[in-house]
């Protein structure tokens, strides 16, 4: 564990989480949520949980981002609230 790397990851994680909640464009929100998943994947890898990191990269960043993008295309792209 390198504390500088950990701190950078955690700060980026919080920034990505807040952006994906606040952003009005739902497609961009899905993509930022994918970035959040990749950062989570790096955090798992830092904590030596490689199997979990693998799953997070495949499911969280890959497939579930695509699920959200597919759903956004079926509704409107702009968030109303």
């Amino acid at each position, binding site marked *: *564990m390198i504390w500088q790397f950990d701190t950078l990851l955690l700060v980026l994680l919080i920034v990505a989480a807040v952006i994906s909640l606040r952003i009005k464009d739902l*497609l961009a929100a899905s993509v930022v949520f994918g970035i959040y998943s990749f950062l989570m994947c790096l955090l798992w890898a830092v*904590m030596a949980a*490689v*199997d979990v*990191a*693998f*799953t997070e990269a*495949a*499911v969280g960043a*890959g*497939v579930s981002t*695509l*699920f959200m*993008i*597919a*759903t*956004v*295309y*079926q*509704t*409107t*792209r702009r968030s109303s609230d």
Partner: protein
Amino acid sequence: MRAFGLIIVLLTGGLLLWGVRDFPLFGAADSPANGGVVTAYYLQHTMQDARVPNAVTTVLADYRSYDTMFETAVIFTAGIAIFAILRVFDDRGGRRLRKSQDAPVKGDQYRIIVGTTSRLLIAPIQLFALYVLVHGHHSPGGGFQGGVIIGASFLLLAVARNLQTSLDRFPERRFLAMGAGGVLIYAGTGLLCMLLGRNFLDYGALQAVLPATGPEMARSHGIFAVEIGVAVTVSASMFAVYAMLASRGRLKDGL
């Protein structure tokens, strides 16, 4: 109301962080996860019991195989539930759905750079998925990750071309059958152990039917068999969920 929500969120977050103080430090040797009798047994016996160096795989698919079997069943149930909610068989008479302004335009599937790149990538992705599935005994990965990557390769095809191209290769009947079939492979392996006179999912019994040199190798092969079941269910469920979401359950003209 917003202020009230903020107070609740801050209070809950503060309590959760306060609760973390009692947790053992990261990597502490005396934490329950690291110091327990069970952990020591798993780490020391994974090679003798099942000839699998990756203890994560042994724990998931052998020592706690009931857990993984019902996890597979949960994924299958989730896929079937989304299918049951979204699938529309009769298109007539319903309310005309508003066409999204962001819907893909006609001819979109002929985008040459995206199309060619994904066509070149899909075969290596599927090969890598099979490697992840087969090599789960020795490296991170296994049935779940391999299955997700196989599903993702079909999703890539659907995104880069269109849903119909993907459905031609992975039709509805097939992904439904594979979703159920994977759970059946897993439970069937367990049942086979029972028929051979041992407990449910006690792979050592497979020694009698597999070309294994002993009960340890039989357990290793048993783990591989259930990993295949997990991969089949997961890949089919992932594709089923995407196909339902992308086409509003009509399985045509999707994203």
